[in-house]
């Protein structure tokens, strides 16, 4: 039996410890905001927070998450009002949207550790998140806007 906390809710799962965290989130818990992209930690679509770090859930076995705290895009904020989510909406960042949950979860770690990131900081943090639609420029603008919102407390 594996116990873990997902989005501030406790779960006990009778499951193979080698099962990827991504499959647990999507197929067992039903949190489908996190997406399957490449399955080999190359694209970033499946990024969730494990104890605050932006892990790739496709290669993270559920055994690693045992007893730990997981936050998915559904749990990033209570009312979809994280500065990043607001900035994303305001700048209409999304095109197809498939990679965006992973993009936002990676950006959230950046903004937690760096309240006023430069373009270079954003590039360093987001290099591992691929967007096939090429929304990179809007992502960068939205992260700057979210940082500003965060600094202003809005």
């Amino acid at each position, binding site marked *: 039996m594996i116990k873990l906390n997902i989005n501030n809710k406790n779960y006990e799962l009778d499951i193979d410890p080698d099962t990827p965290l991504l499959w647990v989130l999507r197929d067992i818990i039903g949190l489908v905001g996190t997406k399957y992209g490449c399955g*080999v*930690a*190359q694209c970033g679509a499946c*990024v969730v927070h494990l104890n605050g*770090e*932006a*892990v*790739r859930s496709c*290669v*993270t*076995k559920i055994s*690693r998450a045992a007893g730990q705290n997981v936050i998915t895009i559904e749990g990033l904020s209570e009312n979809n009002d994280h500065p990043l989510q607001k900035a994303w909406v305001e700048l209409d960042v999304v095109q197809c949207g498939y990679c965006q949950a992973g993009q936002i*979860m*990676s*950006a959230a*770690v*950046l903004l937690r*550790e*760096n309240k006023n990131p430069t373009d270079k*900081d954003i590039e*360093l*943090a*987001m*290099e*591992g*998140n691929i967007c096939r639609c090429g929304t990179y420029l809007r992502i960068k603008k939205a992260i700057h806007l979210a940082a500003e919102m965060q600094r202003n407390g809005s």
Partner: protein
Amino acid sequence: MEIKPGKKRLNIRHAKFAIIIIFIVTVSGLLTSGFRSNTSHEKAWVVEVNNKDSIASVDAFMKVYQVLKSPRCMNCHPAGDIPLQGDDSHLHTMSPIRGKDGKGVYAMKCSNCHQPNNSAGLNTPPGNPKWALPPEDMKMVFEGKSPRELALQIMDYKRNGHKNKAQLLEHARDTLVKAGWNMGAGRKPPPLSYKEFVAAWDKWNNNGGVAPK
């Protein structure tokens, strides 16, 4: 040139004096060493001399060097701040950077992809709980180093991660070093077996850690 009689007498006198001094010094040296008790300090000195074999040490290091320069070791000891990847040691895709502690930055920390164990499948992220580059203030670069440069770097306490001889010997047994021989599918192992590497590493260190010319 004519030699003046006075000058010649002076030279002979000097020579006689020098021979007497050398005789006294030699005899007193032999006598004192012969009667000196065999102290532990002296034993240690003798052991140290006997254990140093610079030819064997250099020979062993050249084996060690082949391993250190193999992609399995060198890829995480790059000249720049981005790790290398693959048997051709290309720059790591996604360009993750070293960061202050060697464990990456922001959403690009090593352990976000590199799990405690290897991931299944061809060319998936290899894993180890300690996965990291050397830290920013002690980069311990292997890439581009000649055998002499690398040997001197490893033997230099100020550039080797502050390791003394015992810690250097221990380092070859580190689980992250050992992981170089278990890097997952699609990656060529180092040219020596792990056992051969440790033997060569020990031999190099125990024979004085001599750097090749």
